[in-house]
């Protein structure tokens, strides 16, 4: 009980301080609600607009998850290819870094122009933004097997396939999960970025990104706040799903997964 209290007392105290500080500031400085609505107004918006929020949440979750899953599949395949030789890595790695350095906001309009405005394009934006962390971390895991372990397999006359399936792949799983954690969070950012451009010409309801543009243009700042909260909740959900699978797969043997910690 005491340990429980010590773990949660401070985060809860900080939360309450922020909420009360926020509410107090709105009252004290008489901030108009379209600039900064108070916590009560935001809570009201969440309750009143829950059906819109839930709909937008599902649309964005589907798009983000689609791009994310595709990036995992493609990322692992590309990493397996990269792990084959240093020459392949030297020739192709610089171009994968482009995936990371090109501003996604700048190329999202291009993607929409090429692939049309809709779910497919939004998924593609999420896919592009998720791909690099998966490739980079999985490749690192595949090629960083300790030399003695490789020698051990050579001494057993292991085939190339055995070396890959029984040594390199399992060794790369913890690194893969580092990539999955990073990409899980940014897949939501990718999907919302895509929607800012994609769904804006579809009148009616769209995902969180579309709804954010809409709420902004209508000065419905309390709804905007509710949407931002929903978007972070979606990011958290992705993150915890990844952490859960990581714990499931690695808890037996990997130090990092032994005790899930709040860090």
């Amino acid at each position: 009980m005491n340990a429980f209290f010590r773990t949660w007392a401070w985060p809860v105290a900080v939360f309450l301080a922020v909420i009360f500080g926020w509410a107090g500031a709105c009252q004290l400085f008489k901030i108009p609600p379209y600039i900064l609505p108070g916590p009560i107004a935001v809570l009201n918006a969440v309750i009143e607009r829950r059906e819109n929020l839930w709909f937008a949440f599902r649309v964005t979750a589907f798009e983000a998850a689609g791009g994310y899953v595709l990036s995992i599949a493609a990322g692992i395949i590309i990493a397996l290819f990269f792990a084959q030789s240093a020459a392949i890595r030297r020739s192709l790695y610089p171009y994968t870094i482009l995936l990371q350095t090109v501003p996604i906001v700048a190329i999202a309009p291009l993607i929409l122009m090429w692939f049309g405005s809709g779910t497919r394009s939004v998924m593609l934006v999420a896919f592009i933004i998720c791909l690099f962390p998966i490739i980079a971390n999985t490749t690192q895991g595949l090629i960083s097997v300790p030399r003695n372990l490789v020698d051990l397999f050579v001494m057993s006359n292991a085939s190339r396939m055995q070396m890959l399936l029984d040594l390199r792949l399992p060794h790369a799983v913890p690194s893969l999960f580092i990539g999955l954690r990073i990409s899980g969070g940014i897949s939501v950012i990718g999907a919302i970025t895509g929607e800012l451009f994609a769904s804006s010409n579809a009148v009616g309801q769209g995902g969180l990104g579309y709804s954010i543009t809409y709420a902004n243009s209508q000065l419905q700042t309390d709804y905007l706040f509710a949407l931002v909260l929903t978007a972070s909740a979606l990011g958290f959900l992705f993150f915890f799903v990844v952490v859960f699978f990581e714990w499931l797969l690695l808890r037996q043997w990997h130090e990092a997964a032994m005790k899930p910690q709040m860090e």
Partner: protein
Amino acid sequence: MTNPQTVSAPAEGQTALPFPGPPFITIRDVTKTWPNGTTVLSQVQLDVAKGDFISLIGPSGCGKSTLLRLISGLSPMSSGFIQIDGMIPENAREIMSFIFQDATLLPWRTVSRNVELGLELQGGETRGNRAAKARELLKLVGLQSVADHYPRQLSGGMKMRVSIARALAIRPKILLMDEPFGALDEMTRDFLNEEVLRLREVDKFTTFFVTHSVSEAVFLSNRIMVLKANPGQIHREIQVPFPNPRSASLRSAPEFLALVGEVSSALRAVKSQK
């Protein structure tokens, strides 16, 4: 005592070969040069009989670990030749096991699945047979109770015993050990030394053992090769006359301590040559 680089007859307590045939392992004029021009080993000669326990000891940079890698075929030699039971090293891997300084266990496999690894990679055994063999070997090294544990749950000494069990699982005729107990505390090391001798009574493997510890070398081997550095060569062979099986009490016998002294002074001589 013995001349450098001589071909020795099997020591006392060893079964001599019935006929003077070719030696089990022949190492002739073996030279290893790194790409940067450093000569690690130069003109090494060594004949090894079946059942020999050979320790390689010497200052760092004398090439003792390199010699082990050449025998295993993990690293190619620059010139000379090594013949193992009539085969070149790369073809003799099926009768050899390598034990590294760290236990090199696969952390994602349980202890018994680690012991099965060699059999699994070689193929030709059913899963049930492999598991049965692993159980048998874990019993041999006294670890049957942790068969389903993962390596991270074991102490350093236990990990090394698992590594030894895995090496023995393929029933090797030759065991190559590269400072296997270097990272362990002295009590664990002494215990594992006795374990190695006991296992050797069971399986009669031929052993190459790289070490920095003089008393470990004297306790285990029947032949000790003192190597010198720059370039690496066998400076002197010292024979260990104690019969097998040996017990822990040998360590306090005056003959044992005298031989430890002799090997130590040979090592000092080699070090001062630089």
